[in-house]
């Protein structure tokens, strides 16, 4: 295969490089080890959460959806366990995105591209698809052999067909799980089995099925290398103290046979390259295509163990430590003699750095603001929209009227009756709510809220001719009270306007 015997770029003669490159297929080899186990664990956790979360139930009382996590587009509600968000609170999602971004920045500054290598959906699903591919088509060598055949026999064709079938099935489950987050999962599944689904559901199912199949089955590392913007600026978060997947060149170079005199620890077996899901050679150093998954660490460790050499020729290591080890071992002969002094020259990586302090500070501020916002949310909200056309109305007896639109939001699931008061106006001021004749014992008009919704009422405030305020603008406070006990539930400031004196 071309990848194996591609000539080194420096050996190329003066031939103009083409403007468009053929894709070099990557055939990652299976690998076992600590990093691989960690990746399996993260994969299992992420996929379990993704596929199962919509099926989790959460009792919210009658008439309310009992799905723990649900984005209800039709009613404009987002349910997350005990939290219910309204569309006007979309800033919590913004906060969540800010938290996610800063958390990734912080993780990157500490451990390099752990997001890319372990938790990114592209990596998780690609890993899953590669596992399926390996089960059906065999490991690296078998797959390469099959793809090089001029003609496929029936067994080859059956395996290819089975692989794509399995991929499509996973992709459909993925697309199916996606639409469950926007619809009641059991209902949707029942309707889907009965062949009764909306075009929107079908469209999103198709979209996510198609993209999953395409991106995890076909595009794979091309997404990371050519499409994703993150690798292009992730270097801005990393510094010489970030723990990144590194080849300890001071120990490995010069490469040579296991028994060759004067050779370093690297036996140039290319195990690290063979297992790489993006097909890079980690020994070339930090590079854009490396997603930091660390599978080369496992591959190299297993070879080193076989050779009876200590593990860690490839490891999560900082650039500072690489330089320190390099300096400490420069004068020593390659190989075993360098191991001790090289490792001794290392220092514990500095976790606490200006940038990590800053990231943690931003995380704390944003998380604190969001928590405070959630904790201080009131069940009843009041918005007051003053009528601007007309600003005020002069009635036939000379009294002056202002009108206000009251928007009462009530998060509780039962309608409540509340009394309206206006503070700051003279005695004799008359309050009237259009469409509501009811008033309490104190003569205050009553309004009802809409359960889990926004009710709209028009409030007419009339000051009699004899008591008109001197100024053309009077500050008022409109308040909602519980009729019993006079507890104030919500209030808003506004003004009462009149003609200029």
């Amino acid at each position, binding site marked *: 295969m071309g990848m194996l015997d591609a000539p080194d770029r420096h050996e190329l003669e003066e031939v103009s490089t083409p403007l*468009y490159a053929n894709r070099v297929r990557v055939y990652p080899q299976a690998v076992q080890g600590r990093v691989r186990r960690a990746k399996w664990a993260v994969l299992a956790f992420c996929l379990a959460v993704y596929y199962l979360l919509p099926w989790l139930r959460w009792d919210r009382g009658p008439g309310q959806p009992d799905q723990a996590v649900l984005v209800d587009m039709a009613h404009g509600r987002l349910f997350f366990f005990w939290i219910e968000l309204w569309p006007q609170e979309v800033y919590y999602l913004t906060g969540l995105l800010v938290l996610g971004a800063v958390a990734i920045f912080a993780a990157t500054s500490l451990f390099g591209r752990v997001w890319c290598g372990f938790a990114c959906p592209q990596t998780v699903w690609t890993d899953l698809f590669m596992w399926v591919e390996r089960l059906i088509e065999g490991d690296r060598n078998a797959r390469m052999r099959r793809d090089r055949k001029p003609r496929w026999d029936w067994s080859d064709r059956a395996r290819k067909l089975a692989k794509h079938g399995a991929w499509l099935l996973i992709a459909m489950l993925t697309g199916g799980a996606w639409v469950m987050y926007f619809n009641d999962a059991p209902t949707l599944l029942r309707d889907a089995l009965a062949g009764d689904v909306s075009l929107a559901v079908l469209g999103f199912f198709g979209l996510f099925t198609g993209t999953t199949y395409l991106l995890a089955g076909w595009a794979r590392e091309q997404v990371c290398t050519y499409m994703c913007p993150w690798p292009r600026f992730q270097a801005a978060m990393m510094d010489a103290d970030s723990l990144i997947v590194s080849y300890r060149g001071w120990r490995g170079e010069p490469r040579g046979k296991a028994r060759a005199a004067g050779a370093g620890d690297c036996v140039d077996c290319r195990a690290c390259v063979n297992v790489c899901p993006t097909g890079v050679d980690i020994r070339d150093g930090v590079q854009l295509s490396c997603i930091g998954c660390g599978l080369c660490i496992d591959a190299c460790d297993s070879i080193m163990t076989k050779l009876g050499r200590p593990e860690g020729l490839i490891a999560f290591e900082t650039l500072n430590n690489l330089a320190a080890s390099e300096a400490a071992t420069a004068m020593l002969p390659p190989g075993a003699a360098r191991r001790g002094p090289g490792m001794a020259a290392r220092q514990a990586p500095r976790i606490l750095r200006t940038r990590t302090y800053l990231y943690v500070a931003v995380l704390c501020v944003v998380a604190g603001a969001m928590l405070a916002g959630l904790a201080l949310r009131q069940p009843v909200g009041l918005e007051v929209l003053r*009528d601007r056309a007309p600003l005020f*109305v002069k009635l*036939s007896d000379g009294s002056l*009227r202002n009108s206000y639109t009251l928007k009462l939001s009530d998060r509780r699931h039962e309608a409540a009756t509340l009394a309206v008061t206006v503070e700051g106006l003279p005695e004799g001021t008359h309050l009237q709510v259009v469409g509501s004749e009811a008033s309490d014992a104190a003569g205050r008009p009553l309004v009802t809220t809409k359960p889990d919704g926004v009710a709209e009422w028009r409030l007419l405030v009339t000051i009699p001719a004899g008591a008109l305020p001197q100024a053309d603008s009077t500050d008022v406070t409109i308040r909602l009270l519980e009729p019993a006990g006079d507890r104030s539930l919500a209030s808003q400031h506004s003004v009462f306007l009149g003609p200029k004196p």
Partner: protein
Amino acid sequence: MANKIEHDAVTGRQTTGHEWDGIKELNTPLPKWWLWTFYATIVFAVVWCILYPALPFTGATGLLGYTGRGEGEQALAAHRAATEPMLERLRQTEIEQVLADPELRAYAVAGGRAAFANTCAGCHGAGGQGAQGGFPSLADDDWIWGGKPADIEQTIRHGIRAAEDPETRTSQMPRFLADGMLTAAQVNDVAEHVLSLTGRATDAEAASRGAAIYAENCAACHGDQGQGSHEVGAPRLNDQVWLYGGDKASIVRSISYARGGVMPAWGQRLDPAVIRMLTVYIHSLGGTE
């Protein structure tokens, strides 16, 4: 492309030969699938041009026969079909019952607000605030032809002095000075009397002279206390709301040359349901009786 192959000193990579202010572009080959994706977009564009009306000046309508106007008409038809049941309920329900039904009322206020902005706001102002010079406010409690919801509905349907509707509300105030029914001095006296109805007379003697003239010429329509009459559309004169101005000069002018606004009869142009919604909306402004 440059004829001579150049290498970047730092990376050893070839350059494309393109140079901007001394910075040379490295040749990083684009993957071929990206190129094919680009070609696919071109094919997409061609297919689009065949299916949809995309070529200017050719009159080509595209294979799908799509037009933006047609889509708009479909959307309108769908909207009409969706609103029809509610509109039919409005047509079948008397105005008082509409006001008593919270669901119908909320629907009618929302629909009436839109219809009002479209047909009424031009004269009566946004929010029914009215304008000086004969455009009555609909938010206050002073009504010339009656402020009960049924009266308002009648006014909207048949208009005021609307030539096109035989059932329109109509009355004519005489032009007392212009037609020689009163002298200028008499008009002045009547004006003083009218001012005295709201306690603003400046010349008590003239006002008392005017009272007699008022009783003879004006009281039949405007009432002996200036309380007005909804039956003939005679405005109240003993309140604080003046459609054509309440100062003496304006009142003198009103008596001398008469006033009389005109409103179209909307019953011939609007759906009865829309007229009902307009009535409910005006009722929601708070000034109705």
